[in-house]
């Protein structure tokens, strides 16, 4: 129900840049996921959208209206805090009900809304407990319930599922997506979990050291990373990055030789190839010639680590693939899915 624009946002503490040159235009009803390593400024950005932190420079707009000087309580956002921030003296019921009371929702609706939100996060049996009597995961779900109990303009969720087990996380993910779609509420979501990012996001924002590295749909981020940081950050295991030299369309590194690269660049470059775009091959013409360094069968796929020179390269092999350590192995790269990056600044060349 709201479009959020961040124009040239800067946040500094002394000489330290928390967030730098952030420009995003979040469309109405969009689900945007912030992804990035710890300390890259995700929470800070979110707090600025919520109005809990003031940017040193730049404009925050909601539906075209500049919000910089609007107090947090007047912004009509609901936030799940990374540290939960449950009110210790109130029961879970009262915690979830608090925003309804503060926002003037008619009293006769409270009970129904609280129970519905608690039901969605599977906390119905814990409503009369105090936060201190809940487990970490239960507290986190209580914090989530407090955010989804009403229909705000914007949802801000700071790692709302980080403390749940895999099964519950999957269930909550579905709930969040469903609520967001049903209520059509613009949502900003922070996570460290790639699966969460890929499955929930309309668009993903990748951040590093306070700066945005790339904004794009999950497919764009996966298929068209703009630099080595994004390439390496998305995908599990991450993309293989191999340093070598390119001349005349042929890339050469220890044990690696890739021909037919359409690029006019010459000299030192970094070649990127995802483990899932590699296949074990019988041909000696294959791009990678190395030895088996490690083998990890997981059931549905076997992770093969190949040693070439002093470089280790991850390969997603067939689930039936088996090999002894240190035997020679050839790996073919999918020629359509090879990336070339500048060795100096990591920018994508091709």
């Amino acid at each position, binding site marked *: 129900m709201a479009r959020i624009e961040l124009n040239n946002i800067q946040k500094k503490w002394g000489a330290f840049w928390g967030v730098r040159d952030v420009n995003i235009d979040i469309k109405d009803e969009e689900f945007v996921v912030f992804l990035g390593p710890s300390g890259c400024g995700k929470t800070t950005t979110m707090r600025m959208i919520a109005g809990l932190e003031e940017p040193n420079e730049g404009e925050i707009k909601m539906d075209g209206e500049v919000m910089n000087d609007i107090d947090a309580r007047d912004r009509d956002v609901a936030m799940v805090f990374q540290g939960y921030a449950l009110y210790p003296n109130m029961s879970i019921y009262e915690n979830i009900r608090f925003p309804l009371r503060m926002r003037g929702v008619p009293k006769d609706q409270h009970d129904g809304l609280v129970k519905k939100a608690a039901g969605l996060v599977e906390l119905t049996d814990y409503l009369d407990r105090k936060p*201190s009597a809940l487990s970490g995961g239960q*507290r986190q779900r209580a914090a989530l319930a407090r955010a989804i109990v009403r229909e705000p303009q914007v949802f801000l969720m700071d790692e709302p599922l980080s403390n749940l087990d895999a099964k519950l996380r999957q269930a909550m993910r579905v709930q969040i997506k469903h609520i967001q779609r049903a209520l059509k509420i613009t949502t900003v979501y922070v996570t460290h979990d790639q699966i969460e990012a890929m499955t929930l996001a309309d668009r993903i924002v990748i951040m590093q050291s306070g700066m945005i590295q790339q904004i794009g749909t999950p497919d764009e981020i996966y298929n068209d990373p703009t630099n080595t940081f994004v390439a390496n950050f998305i995908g599990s295991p991450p993309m293989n990055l191999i340093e070598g030299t390119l001349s005349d369309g042929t890339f050469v590194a220890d044990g690696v030789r890739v021909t037919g690269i359409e690029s006019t660049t010459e000299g030192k470059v970094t070649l990127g190839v995802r483990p899932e775009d590699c296949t074990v091959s019988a041909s000696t013409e294959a791009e990678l010639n190395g030895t088996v360094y490690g083998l990890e069968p997981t059931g549905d796929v076997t992770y093969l680590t190949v040693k070439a020179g002093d470089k280790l390269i991850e390969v997603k092999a067939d689930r039936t693939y088996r090999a002894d350590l240190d035997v020679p192995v050839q790996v073919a790269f999918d020629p359509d899915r090879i990336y070339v990056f500048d060795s100096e600044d990591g920018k994508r060349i091709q």
Partner: protein
Amino acid sequence: MASNRKKSRGESLFLRYLILGGWALFCLAPVLWFLSIGLRPRTEIITPQPIYIPTFSLDAWHMIWEDWPMGKYLRNSVAAIIGSVIIDLVLAIPAAYSLSRFEYKGRDDIGFYILSTRMMAPAIVAVPIFFLFRNMGLLDTIWALMLVYAAINLSFVTWIIRSYMLDIPKELEDAARTDGAGEIRILWEIIIPAILPGIITASVIAMIFAINEFLFTLLIASTPDAYTMSVALANFTGGSDGVIYNAIALVAFLAFVPVFLVVVAIQKHLSRGLTMGAVKG
């Protein structure tokens, strides 16, 4: 091995009880002693010979209630103390909130100034305070006592509450703010309940100071109209009857009991812990 360890565990437990028990006895002995003085006849207390079988007597008890308006002194004490603590809390809570939460120029200086009022000797301001109250026509009233006790205690009550407020995670207020609460709501519904142990601790300490306050009470209360327990004590030390030890002891005991009971009743709140479970961890 195992039994060895068990034995030394038992020994250390015994040692612990011994030390704690000894300490408790050391602290409580004077209390028991003046209770025993207060409940014996006056003649028995002042004999130099040791007495092995004490005589029980309610002489002092009857004396303080019948010959002296002890009930009134007690009421004065209670009213002045409770009033002063209320004044302190009403002033200290918003002050502490401001000192711990908002950022403004000179905030830390103001905080230090508040604390520094505690650093000077009370006698320095005794004379000005006397004239102040005289001009306001408040001499010899419990209102004056209330104000003086409140003034004496205000600084450290503010500081104790402030330190508890600093322990509250800032995220808690941020959450309340995004949920739509204003400053007053946040203070009333989030902060105060979370720092209740601190408020109680500060109040109890303020009460203990107030109940023992003597100098200003003597200055302000010139007639029994505004006498409190602590000043009433002084009444038994002079005059034609000499020092009435058993009455002094009994009044002292009576002044001790209410504070003791209050502390026992709220003991569990004196420890921190209410903020547990507010944030991750």
